[in-house]
């Protein structure tokens, strides 16, 4: 069997006495959409931070595409094809939507010690950026500064920037965070389309259970930083432990 695209082994991270990630082992085969769920404070974002290279794990290893990336900084991981989106929208507010995506394209287009040609007039940056805005359904808003976009549009742009890197692995941190029902449904459709196109592996952190059970091939449940269960959506739904620890809780909350 081929080596999985992403292999996490014994990953641990503590903040003082709080163990946010406790011996997590996971494997993502290429092409899988894998959802990580868990109650607030379960360590989902800590896990993602370690995968993206923003947090240094206390123990454990991360292998990506056959290479140990545990000690690589964030920008080096991004250049190897590992892109992320942020839970709290993290755009360049003064740049237009197109410029935001063009910057993501630029990151993958060699070094940026280019001092002379205006970036705005470089077709090599703006054309791929326009294509991605089109794919994501934002082409009509290309010239609008990111700060002036509606919340749902900003969330879409957030994904567009991650996609612009043409990543092999996409880490999505709550893409539907703060969205209304309508925007949320549009986002799920967009992600389903992305998955159907193939060629991309996605690790999805999400609170919206409808989205998770619609999209995921496999689901991992984190509680207190530990993997409580991991398997196909039907298994997770049937798992008594998960129901009591999380799903039941969520139903009560609703």
């Amino acid at each position, binding site marked *: 069997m081929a080596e999985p695209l992403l292999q996490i082994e014994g990953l641990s991270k503590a903040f003082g006495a709080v163990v946010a990630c406790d011996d997590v082992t996971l494997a993502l085969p290429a092409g899988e959409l894998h959802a990580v769920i868990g109650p607030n404070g379960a360590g989902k974002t800590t896990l993602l931070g370690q995968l993206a290279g923003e947090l240094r794990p206390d123990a454990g290893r991360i292998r990506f595409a056959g290479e140990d990336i545990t000690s690589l900084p964030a920008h*080096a991981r*991004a250049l190897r094809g590992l892109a992320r989106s942020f839970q709290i929208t993290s755009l*360049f*507010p003064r740049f237009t939507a197109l410029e935001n995506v063009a910057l*993501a394209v630029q990151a993958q287009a060699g070094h940026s010690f280019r001092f002379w040609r*205006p970036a705005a007039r470089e077709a090599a*940056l703006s054309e791929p950026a326009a294509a991605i805005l089109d794919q994501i359904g934002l082409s009509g808003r290309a010239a609008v500064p990111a700060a002036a976009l509606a919340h749902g549009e900003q969330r879409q742009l957030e994904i567009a920037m991650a996609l612009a*890197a043409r990543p092999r692995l996409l880490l999505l941190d709550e893409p539907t965070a703060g969205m209304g029902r309508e925007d949320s449904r549009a986002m799920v459709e967009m992600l389903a389309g992305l998955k159907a196109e193939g060629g991309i592996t996605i690790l999805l952190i999400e609170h919206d259970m409808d989205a998770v059970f619609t999209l995921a091939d496999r689901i991992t449940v984190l509680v207190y930083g530990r993997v409580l269960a991991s398997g196909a959506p039907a298994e997770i739904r049937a798992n008594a432990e998960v129901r009591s620890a999380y799903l039941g809780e969520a139903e009560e909350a609703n």
Partner: protein
Amino acid sequence: MPSVTRRGLLLLAALALLLLLPAVVRGLGIDYAVGVATRMLIFALAGASLNLILGYGGMVSFGHAAFFGAGAYVVAILSQHATYGEPLMTWPFVIEGTESALIAWPLAMAASGLLALLIGLVCLRTSGLYFIMITLAFAQMIYFFFISLRAYGGEDGLSLFARSRAGPLDLADDVQFYYLVLVILLVALALQRRLVASRFGRVLEGARDNERRMQALGFPTYRYKLAGFVIAGAVAGLSGALIANQTEFVSPSFLDWQRSGEILVIVILGGMGRLLGPVAGAVAFLLLEEVLSAWTEHWMLVLGPILVLVVLFARGGLWSLIDPRERNRG
């Protein structure tokens, strides 16, 4: 688009005024004003160099005078050695003093750029308040280094025997010197305009607005910020080489923290992240100094409230009052 035309007209008028200024002040019988105008242009250049890292790069350097002063000292030290006919050093190779602008000014840029590289390597590992404090600390170290440099005047500073020689130009003539400084400033601003719109400029602005995202996109931001810091240091060194020629004197006060503060005020007053902001800032700052210091030595008492008003009500600085297009930007 009436505002664009207005902007164009305004820039044209300002350029005409700058070109005609020597003739106008001579007509008015206030020849000394050429020197004041030259100082404004030189501080505009120093401000523009800080604007690159502060306005576009978001790096609040509180030690910019170190590069400014180092550039001034390079010109003065080379000039002193040329005057006395002593080589600057004889081992491992001989460096003679020089009064040639073509040698001394690029050397001033190189020395300040190198200094910026060394300081930037350390400072850019920090950010925010720490960055402000550590740039200040380095600048003060350089300041005390020059104070202790007995051979070059120590605390008393160093007089230049003459201004630099620049080919057919006679820089001892205030009007010719003024025009040379004006050309240098215009060229520097034109280059800066290209630079901030380039891929490199995008990375600087991106790192200013959201460095974490830049790294997640795959940009090693540290090296780009360092490159920007070095360019800014080298241009500040050039402005220092010009001020040494203008005053024909250098002293450690050229690189103390108050001078760093003045350059910061010029940029903030004029408009951070606006190409021509530092020009407006330098003109306003030196004009206020010129007018008010004749009236009271406590002229900063007036500058302070003005700065507060600008920061509160014109966040794009004076330049945004002049150019309405700039008003609504960040």
